[in-house]
């Protein structure tokens, strides 16, 4: 006897309910009640919320909550093949890029790779201090034999951050130009930002084979793209209205305004977004190691799985070192841009 029986009886829906009642699996509570022989009478304090499960007890035709989650899964599986036809070829270049980058960065001998990286750092920051810092960090990592893992992690971050900028900046520009676009995109960004990172991985595992690098590539990009989109939009919207008016008054076209005024003036904000994007892709690369992303994350995962404290700690330290290096380099690049066009 369930709580809401009376409701369905008075509404005259009893026939409809029982007609649909079938061999829906019995809940453990029911089973216990049946075997113990006591009718489970509910006291006033236990009066249940009219949830799907509670209603199902009274009326078999109403589905249980379990059916909802199962329905979602079945729906996704039904969609999967169609989705694959579209998404698979679209994302194939990502797999290819990740594979190539991983290959290049791990197969190039260290005595070539390290100088190239340091030159890159100098080109971006023009600061020998930062170059020294990065050299020290990489040397420490290499000294404790984490060089290969670090390169794998870096390779994934480079590719993913690059694609984030490639896609994120144009989306941000579109958002800054149209309020409607902004209204549509912001909830999506909010969702991407608040969804627990593990949740990205589940549907992706269904969609792609675990051997494909794009599986984790997409997860990293989805997670890390948010700040660059947000800050591009914000940066362009924050460009001094007076300067925009001057550009209009002198007859600039939309494109002249965008490339000659808005983007250059929004660049400090866009670069701040790139910095955040890089940091977030580093965070996600570690989590993505659960779905076969190589790199330092694998070691962290091993540390957790096998309770190897030392392995986990050293790998974790390596990630911190990489994070500091990446942050300092991008911040120095940002400061350089800021200084060269300075404040109003």
């Amino acid at each position, binding site marked *: 006897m369930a709580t809401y029986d009376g409701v369905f009886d008075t509404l005259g829906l009893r026939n409809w309910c029982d007609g649909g009642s079938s061999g829906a699996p019995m809940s453990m509570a029911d089973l216990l009640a049946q075997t113990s022989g006591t009718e489970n009478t509910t006291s006033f304090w236990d009066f249940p919320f009219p949830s799907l499960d509670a209603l199902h007890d009274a009326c078999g035709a109403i589905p249980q909550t379990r059916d909802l989650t199962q329905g979602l899964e079945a729906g996704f599986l039904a969609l999967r093949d169609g989705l694959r036809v579209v998404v698979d070829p679209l994302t194939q270049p990502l797999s290819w890029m990740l594979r190539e980058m991983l290959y290049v960065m791990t197969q190039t001998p260290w005595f070539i790779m390290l100088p190239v990286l340091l030159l890159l750092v100098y080109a971006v920051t023009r600061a020998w201090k930062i170059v020294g810092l990065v050299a020290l960090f990489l040397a420490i990592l290499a000294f404790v034999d984490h060089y290969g893992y670090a390169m794998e992690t870096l390779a994934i971050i480079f590719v993913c951050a690059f694609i984030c900028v490639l896609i994120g900046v144009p989306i941000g520009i579109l958002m800054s130009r149209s309020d409607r676009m902004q209204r549509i995109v912001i909830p999506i960004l909010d969702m991407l930002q608040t969804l627990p990172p593990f949740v990205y991985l589940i549907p992706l595992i269904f969609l792609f084979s675990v051997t494909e690098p794009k599986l984790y590539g997409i997860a990293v990009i989805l997670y890390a793209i948010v700040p660059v989109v947000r800050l591009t939009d914000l940066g362009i919207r924050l460009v001094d209205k007076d300067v925009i008016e001057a550009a209009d*008054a002198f007859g*600039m076209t939309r494109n002249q305004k965008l490339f000659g005024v808005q983007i250059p003036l929004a660049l400090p904000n866009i670069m701040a977004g790139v910095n955040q994007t890089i940091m977030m892709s580093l965070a996600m690369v570690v989590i993505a190691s659960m779905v076969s992303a190589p790199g330092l994350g694998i070691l962290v995962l091993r540390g957790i799985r096998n309770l190897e404290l030392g392995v986990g700690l050293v790998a974790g330290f390596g990630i911190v070192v990489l994070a500091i290096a990446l942050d300092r380099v991008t911040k120095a690049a940002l400061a350089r841009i800021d200084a060269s*066009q300075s404040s109003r």
Partner: protein
Amino acid sequence: MTDKNIKVSIRHLYKIFGEDPASALKDVKGGLSKADLLETRNHVLGLNDINVDIKEGEITVIMGLSGSGKSTLIRHLNRLIEPTAGEVLVEGEDILKWNTRRMRKLRRESMSMVFQKFALLPHRTVLENAGMALATRGRKRAEYEGEANKWLDRVGLGGYGGQYPHQLSGGQQQRVGIARALTSNSDIMLMDEAFSALDPLIRTDMQDLLLELQDELHKTIVFITHDLDEALKLADHLVILNNGAIVQQGEPQKILLDPADPYIEDFVADINRARVLRVRSVMEKTPPEGEVSGEVDHDATLESVIADAQGQMDRRFRVMRRGRAVGTIEMPEIMRALVPAKSSAEAEESSDTAA
């Protein structure tokens, strides 16, 4: 001076801010006041039936306090703001009917603008800023460099071309703003409170610079200001705006000597009339007979005449224009002109007692 062509002409221009300006316009044309419009319909009346003729080669100053709609008005001339109703005729053609392409051409080639907050591009050098109009037309740096440097020299910034705007002082930045407008080589210059953000001394310098340039170039300038001294100094034609409507327009001297309503009387009450009024507006238009104490130019200020007379009340002067005697001026006339019209004095008294 009188038979100059009309370059830009504003006809029955209305601007109403709000959700449904078109229906609010009917009420305004039906005589609804600005305050009532705001109260009953929640629309703001920005401009109310503006009619101005801007003559070629003159400086037309539009003056009003903040909120009077002057900045809104100047932005209608190059359509940075679209009007609710009315016409803006440039050389006889209604630019409100023009498409974007034609409008862009107008903004690039025949109208330039100088802004209150300078609005230079902070990431470009002074030279690139000065050449902005030409660069926008697609000229390469090498092509606009000469022209931009010429005007930078002219406004006194020779040699600053390689610096960035933030390295310059406010006055220098606005000189770049003016050079930018001049480099575009447009006939019409719109100046929106161009000198309001500058220190008083620098402002005077800039006004002198503008007058000097105008003597040479004879551009059609529309100048917005809230400063009556500045307006009187620069204006060939003065338009006084209050609450979105024109209160009085005409030659500044005439407005000063014959204010049309109490608002303007209050406005002109604090002015140093001796420095603003010219001999030509107070003189008698018959050349003197007999003894005179000296000659003065028709464009001289009353202040300079008083100085010439050394304060003596019995002096009279022959007024000269281009070497010809055109009138007589006597000291009592000058003294009378220095006192504002009688009605305003009364108004002041009554306001004093009220306060």
